[in-house]
């Protein structure tokens, strides 16, 4: 199992649940890495979803053993791609053609779920109607509040902005509009006084 229980935090921080089957004629499932486990469990709860399900799976690794398992649950469509960005044109096109009643299920890392949710909410689905389940890495997609650059897969606090080089403190303050957490300069008042980087949730 690849689950992790996030400690309670400020209200801005997204809270994830457990995917459950919902009524509807079309089901869009988006997952990365261990997020596949959540989709397999969802299919186990209601196999009848799968003939109406389109899965977009970001495998990250061609040797990924989950791909075969996802194929075995027999979704209507299974797309496997190397990165989230590679899947975006397909996702946008699907949302453009979709009708009300489409159910969206997101599973995997926070960065994947946040970005896919932004696409779904931009297409008009209320964010509270989109199901999420966290699996796998606790790394975050961070926005530097100073230069606005995004750094993916941040796993330590503080971290160095990959754009402007500032040392940033990892906050739980989240932006649904940007699909990223906010990183704030940690040594603004005493430049150079940077606390040692600690792995998130260690």
């Amino acid at each position, binding site marked *: 199992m690849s689950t992790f229980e996030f400690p309670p935090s400020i209200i801005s921080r997204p809270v994830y649940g457990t995917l459950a089957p919902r*009524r509807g004629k079309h089901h869009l499932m988006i997952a990365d890495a261990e997020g596949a486990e959540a989709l397999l469990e969802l299919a186990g709860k209601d196999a009848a979803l799968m003939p109406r399900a389109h899965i977009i799976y970001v495998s990250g690794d061609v040797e990924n053993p989950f791909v075969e398992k996802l194929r075995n649950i027999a979704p209507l469509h299974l797309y496997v791609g190397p990165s989230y960005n590679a899947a975006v044109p397909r996702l946008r096109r699907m*949302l453009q053609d979709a*009708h*009300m009643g*489409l159910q969206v299920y997101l599973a995997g890392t926070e960065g994947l779920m946040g970005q896919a949710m932004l696409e779904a909410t931009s*297409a008009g689905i*209320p964010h*509270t109607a989109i199901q999420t389940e966290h699996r796998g890495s606790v790394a975050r997609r961070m926005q530097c509040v100073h230069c606005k650059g995004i750094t993916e897969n941040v796993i330590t606090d503080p971290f160095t902005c990959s754009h402007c080089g500032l040392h940033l403190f990892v906050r739980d303050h989240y932006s649904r509009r940007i699909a990223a957490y906010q990183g704030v300069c940690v040594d603004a008042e005493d430049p150079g006084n940077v606390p040692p980087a600690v792995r998130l949730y260690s």
Partner: protein
Amino acid sequence: MSAGTTKIAVTVTDIVPLNDLVTRFRFERTDGGLLPTFSGGAHTVVEMKDGGKTRLNPYSLMSDPSDQTAYTISVRRDDAGRGGSLFMHRNVTVGDEMVISYPVNLFALDLRAHKHLMIAGGIGITPFMAQIKQLVATDGRFELHYACRNQALGTYADDLTAAHTTKVHVYFDDDKQAIDLENLLDGQPLGTHLYVCGPKGMINWVRKTAEDLGWPDEAVHYEEFLAPQSGKPFKVRLAKSNLEFEVGEHQSLLEAIEAAGVDAPYLCRGGACGQCETDVIEADGEILHRDHWLEDDEKRSGRKIMPCVSRLEGRIIVLDR
């Protein structure tokens, strides 16, 4: 004074009978000033001095929300009702001074929607009249499906069809025309919000069909004003005010509380808004819950009541008021 119930003194400046059942009333401020703007879907509570009795009925505002010179409402005569609509039809004349509340909106458009799909039944057309004017002014995308008994009773059906030929679809029950709801809902683009106003049966049908098709609750909006129903008289004791009095057969619990001189909170007076929710300390009898505000378990608990529409069948109820 209760929240959101600031009053406006108005004069009736026009009364237009539209068909056998529906009459339109126009209100302008008695002091000649401008009325507040409102948003489509808002209602006003009209005070009626009917002999010694004050009736307070909510009506959807149907005029252009940006027009501050006047408000209009359309009132359907309900011969079997408690008398508010009959009073409007029979006793109100042009030049009368009346008191109405500031507009309150419990049926607002969700402006994040990419498209607004409206379903109206009968007099449920009125909030959509204002919403459509708002959407036309803001280039909003909408589609209206309006079911009414027949051409003669299709209030505003001709006006709407003439103004918005491709967006308004009218169905006459007498001609066995019906909304093909499942197909209609099934084909809506993502980002559509659904609005329904009409009889209870229609609201339930639309909500259920949308739910079965996987529409999220957040995108389904409905408005149904419940009129308080008559019932057997019962006693009420207000613990905080230390008052005890009787609720009459044709009086609502809220009206009885007001008649006793207690300024209790309310907004919609129709079981929808939640403003008048009151804690029950004790009840000797069965509470007849008629609102659609309280959750089922709250209703079962017997600890809460919505006095605008619900009442007691029994001897006495003690309220934390």
